[in-house]
């Protein structure tokens, strides 16, 4: 009644190929999409010109009839505005997907995500505090992400402190995170209420966006997410066993308490990187792991990297939809992740035909 394992692997392989090809195409087209429309052919020429260091298409704008000034303007837009934004969307999406997957795994709860646990709110509060109280305002570009990062990490550490407690169960931890998230939101509201001047900038963190993207930000984000994500992905086997309960996992050789600490720490760090550069972008962390599970089963060795890929594409898709739906306007990305994610999520959730984990669907 079940297919042999071979067909499972084949199915996974095809899903992988489809996602890879679709994703590549999406990235290319996304780089041409933004506040200003770039003709597809021109955009692709510019990309190839820049990527090849001018060897392919020595004249990036050949055949477009553009003046050199306008050509260089388009080149700047595609190469220095759109592409970094696309890449940041991918990096942050991957970070959020990873964070969501690992938190859902460690808390054994399909609702867990960095937003629910207050890690994202902690980041926003960090950003708000520096804005409102003008700490290091001289170099806000650098201080803001740093403080958002600190805020997110300290929230994660606070949850960890509880996790180290003797009587901590997974449920206590989760509830602690939820309570903490509420407290942080309240503090944030209070800070903004008394300092309305700072609220506009802080709103960026509250609603999330890719506005900070440039090659330098992308580089920092990519490096840290790659490192943290690689470390997190090493815990797939342990997370699989943790799904059977801490006791069973421990009886099978998993140091449940230690794995929990490490994974929460890594997930907080990777979330903090995302929050630092893009603010709170909800729903990516929640949805991505579920999509992966539906497509490829519940093995965390696949769910973790898979959620990174799906999260990346999901956030990029949300960015594209925001440009397509409201050309020219830069609406906060968090809005679109919800608009795009919720219907899709509900569709997956209520669909009768389940993707059985091992190809039974």
């Amino acid at each position: 009644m079940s297919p042999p394992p071979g067909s499972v692997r084949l199915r996974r392989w095809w899903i992988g190929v489809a996602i890879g090809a679709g994703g590549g195409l999406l990235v290319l087209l996304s780089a041409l999409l933004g506040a200003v429309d770039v003709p597809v052919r021109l955009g692709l020429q510019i990309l190839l010109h820049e990527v090849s260091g001018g060897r392919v298409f020595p004249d990036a704008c050949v055949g477009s009839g553009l003046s050199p000034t306008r050509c260089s303007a388009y080149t700047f837009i595609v190469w220095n505005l759109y592409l970094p934004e696309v890449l940041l969307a991918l990096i942050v999406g991957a970070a959020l997907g990873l964070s969501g997957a690992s938190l859902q795994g460690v808390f054994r709860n399909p609702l867990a995500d960095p937003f629910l646990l207050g890690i994202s709110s902690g980041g926003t509060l960090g950003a708000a505090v520096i804005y409102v109280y003008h700490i290091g305002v001289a170099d806000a570009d650098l201080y803001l992400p740093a403080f958002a990062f600190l805020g997110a990490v300290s929230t994660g550490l606070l949850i960890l402190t509880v996790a180290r407690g003797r009587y901590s169960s997974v449920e206590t931890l989760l509830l602690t995170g939820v309570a903490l998230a509420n407290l942080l939101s309240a503090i944030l509201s209070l800070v903004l209420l008394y300092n309305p001047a700072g609220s506009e900038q802080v709103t960026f963190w509250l609603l999330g966006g890719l506005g900070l993207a440039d090659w330098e930000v992308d580089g920092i984000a990519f490096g840290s997410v790659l490192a943290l994500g690689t470390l997190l992905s090493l815990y797939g086997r342990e997370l699989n066993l943790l799904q059977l309960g801490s006791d069973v996992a421990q009886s099978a050789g998993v140091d449940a308490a230690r794995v929990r600490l490490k994974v929460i720490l890594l997930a907080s760090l990777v979330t903090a990187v995302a929050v630092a550069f893009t603010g709170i972008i909800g729903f990516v962390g929640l949805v991505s792991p579920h999509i992966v599970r539906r497509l490829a089963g519940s093995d965390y060795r696949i769910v973790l990297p898979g959620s990174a890929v799906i999260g990346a594409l999901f956030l990029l898709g949300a960015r594209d939809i925001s440009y397509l739906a409201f050309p020219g306007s830069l609406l906060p990305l968090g809005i679109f992740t919800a608009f795009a994610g919720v219907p899709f999520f509900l569709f997956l959730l209520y669909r009768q035909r389940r993707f059985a984990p091992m190809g039974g669907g």
Partner: protein
Amino acid sequence: MTLTTPAVRVARLGVRFGDRVALHAVEFDVAPGEFVALAGPNGSGKTTLLRALLGFLNPDEGAVELFGAPVADLSIRERARRVAWVPQEESLRDDVRLSQYVLYGRYPHLRPMDRETETDRALVARILGEVGLADRANDGILSISGGERQRAILARALAQRTPLLLLDEPTSHLDIAHQLDLLGRVHALSRNEGVTVIAALHDLNLAARYADRIIVLSRGRRIADGPPRSVLSEDLLARVWGVDAELAVDSRSGLPYLLPRRLVTETRPSSSTLTAGPVHVVGGGGAGAPLLRGLIDEGFRVTAGALHLLDTDAEAAESLGVVAAVEGPFAPLSPATRAHHRALLSEARVIVVAAFAVGPSNLANLEDVLPYATRTPVVVVDQTPGTPIDFAEGRATAAREALRTAGATFVPDTDSAIREVVRVLAGPRADPSLLTPEG
């Protein structure tokens, strides 16, 4: 590992949860290859003991050794290579393929970056065959039946390839066929592969059927330990579980089995609070205890006598709040005790004589009933053929026959005796004031 190293050594193990003592000075060894059943009522410490064996908790006193190494000194991974655990159930949320699930059991044998090898997969396939799930290998763990899932959990634990297997109520969610199936498989493992098994089992009949040895815990103490047929007794059931049970021996296997009848204490009011009756029970040596309990269950105030101190019937009488004429241990009945006994006999509305063993020291019990037999209804439990109860050179038999002549009703067993009392004192619970003594 030498044969002299026990698989498990529990040394004066003490565990407290706050003020509550969960385990107190528990001490025992388990030899390699032994199948030990842990028995005891809920809250007796079985699960705590298993958790201590798994190294899940730090004992307040004492220590646990697994194959000569203190559990506390072993890393979690090392422990998982020595002992595997089959819990009552596992909360499985994610549907994973059965073969994948069983593969999880290989974790303690894999280094962090390793992938499972073909050897691991072959082992899993073999284990799935052993537990009868070979054809389900590619099914999702959530799609199989409860009985199959419990076998899958066993398979996962077996994949750890440990010399020691701990099971915590592995059959509590299974129907009778699956209970036999699961424990049969575990039993075979213990026999054929020398795996040491410690299983907490609620079902004492299953424990007797499969275990080499039963350790009984009560209130955190090890109160009985040995082969099933020497450990299980009606007395133990009454003392530890508070259950009135009948112990019999299966004629084919020679194994003991228990038929529970009713609770001993929990629902039974103290005899002194009851008003119907009184009914006087003449017994001794344990023959009277079922009568005492049964009559109290029927709502009668019960008296007893004359009993010797430390005698089973005397202890039952005391625990049940039964007023009894009591003599010192093994002593002949003194005039004072006999007077007390006669006083109780004279107050009784019905006298019940148990099929108790009569020797010179308690012959007076039987003889003292005779004067009352003419005015008080007497119910006599007949002796069972083949179980002699007359150790007083025929004088006990003579006394019983005299009772028959005086009009006593003879019944074959305890239950009939209780029914007879109920019949004689018909409706005592409805309105005791309407009753008039017979005669």
